[in-house]
């Protein structure tokens, strides 16, 4: 009898778990709705103070900042997001060290080019800052449309759909990471990644090609664009 009750309990729990995964019922937040998001960096706080937006925030309860949101010298929101996409199995240390090494390689490669260049005008054009290169690469790889499969009249159609900024960033960063992983066994991820980042920042290379291919496919499938509605 007791085993039956246990079984029932287990099934009940299982069904509850399924509910979470469906995504229709979200988990409750730790914070009530009046809590606002923290602003971790000093520069952003200063901007808020200058514009006067900080006034209402001063009297509201604020959520605790995430431990990877800080005001350290090497903090950057894009880099933080990149770390999170790069992380596998919760190993953030590894993700950080890999991207740091990729940055070092980018800098070494760009500085070698910088010192080799003799024409001062061309020299000024070379970007040697790895952070700027990452920003440029991520910006250049963002797609405008993606194909989403939609069922209409018993058949699935690949329908081009516009995406949000967040989704575009997700695509861009993950394509970059995949391109870095697509390498010979003998070479390292950070070596490959440095090349991919520099290429993408100059609007060429494999990731940019992938984006353009997707855009072409969207263009070809524009006849299905109206399946977006209804």
């Amino acid at each position, binding site marked *: 009898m007791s085993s039956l009750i246990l079984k029932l309990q287990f099934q009940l729990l299982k069904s509850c778990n399924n509910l979470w995964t469906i995504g229709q019922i979200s988990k409750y937040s730790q914070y009530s709705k009046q809590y606002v998001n923290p602003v971790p960096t000093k520069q952003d706080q200063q901007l808020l103070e200058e514009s006067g937006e900080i006034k209402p925030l001063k009297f509201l309860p604020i959520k605790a900042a995430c431990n990877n949101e800080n005001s350290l010298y090497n903090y950057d929101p894009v880099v933080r997001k990149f770390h999170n996409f790069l992380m596998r199995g919760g190993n953030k240390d590894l993700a950080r060290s890999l991207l740091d090494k990729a940055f070092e390689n980018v800098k070494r490669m760009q500085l070698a080019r910088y010192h080799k260049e003799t024409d001062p005008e061309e020299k000024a054009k070379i970007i040697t800052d790895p952070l700027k290169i990452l920003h440029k690469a991520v910006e250049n790889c963002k797609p405008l449309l993606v194909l989403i499969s939609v069922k209409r009249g018993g058949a699935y159609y690949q329908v081009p759909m516009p995406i949000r*900024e967040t989704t575009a960033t997700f695509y861009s960063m993950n394509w970059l990471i995949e391109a870095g992983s697509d390498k010979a066994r003998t070479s390292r991820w950070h070596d490959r990644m440095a090349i991919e980042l520099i290429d993408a920042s100059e609007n060429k290379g494999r990731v940019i090609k992938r984006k353009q291919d997707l*855009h072409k496919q969207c263009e070809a499938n524009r006849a299905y664009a109206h399946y977006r509605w209804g």
Partner: protein
Amino acid sequence: MPTLILRPLKKIWALPTQMRLFSSEATAAAVANNVQRKRAVALRTPADPLSHTEKDIGHSYTIPESILSSFFSLGGIPKTYAENIKTFNEAAIMIRPHTIELLNYLRKANYAHPPIRYVLYGKPGCGKTMTITHVLHFAHLSGFIVAHIPWVWNWYRRSRIQAVSSESKPGLVNLPIEAMTWLKYFLSQNEEIIIKSNLRTSKEYVWSPRETTPADSPLIELIQHGIGRVKYACDVVDVLIDELKLNSTNNRCKMMIVIDGFNAFFLPFSNLKKEDKSRVIPDQVTLAQTFFKAVQPDWCNGAVVVTVDQFNTRDEQPQETPLYLLKKRGLEVIDPFIPIEVPYLSTYEFHCLLDYYEDRLWIQRPGAREELEFLSVKNPYELFKLCAPL
């Protein structure tokens, strides 16, 4: 460009969310704030190591291209430094107080007496090997013959190298290929000086019934024999050190013995194996015995500079002091010596080094010096690694 994906359209779709923070414009503005101060300019000394004094501390000096392609052509400089020469577009070394101290000793020593032994010690990453590089440049310019071992543990590190029993010295083992490469390296550094001072062997050496080196033959021939006949390379190194000691005692040349990671000779283990697969202890190797002989004070007109390193122990919490690292056996070989500490950077040196990095574009976004100082504890190599992704 297809009409569907024109850039301006993107603005309609892009919704103003919290992702605004992530756009490159906002971060670019933040970065621009950081960069408002002008880029620092590194302090430099045009002079060569012969004339470096206390006034030059904190400045950087450049090793000329000619020295790099001749004296350091077969290595002798650390690997990371060799990489940085490409990145920084020059081979610069910062002049530090302990180096000046050592250079002053070397300048003022009485060379009629037996060689003074200097032992460099310090925490990992403080710059012992870079100090050695600086001293090597000094020794080369002031006409020393330099017998330099870049890193002792490299002889014992690889288990693939088979140690061969020595024929001339029973109970010891030879590393023929290692000895041959060392001879090549020695020749590349000192060929000019040896030819110029016309050094010759003092007696006849018989290698085998057919091969001999007659008395009064040039030292270069002896070295060439060691390189050509790998079997005898270890014996040639042994004989060569003897001959050089004799020549410098007779005031025909000056010699400096420079050994990096000297305490590896006194470890109780190594990765080498004999023919019968038994392990070799470092001081069973003939090369080790040769260099023990080289650092003995039974010759004059020279100097001995060695470093001791924490990497060459397996203790869990090693100290960096020479007394601890050399142990009893090491002290028997090298005592008495002058210990020279290689310390962390001073605050002035720390700022000089960061100025140099900003000058050579190694730091792209200047600032945050206090944070770097705290994180690196003013350890130069740690600082270099922290600045790598910046």
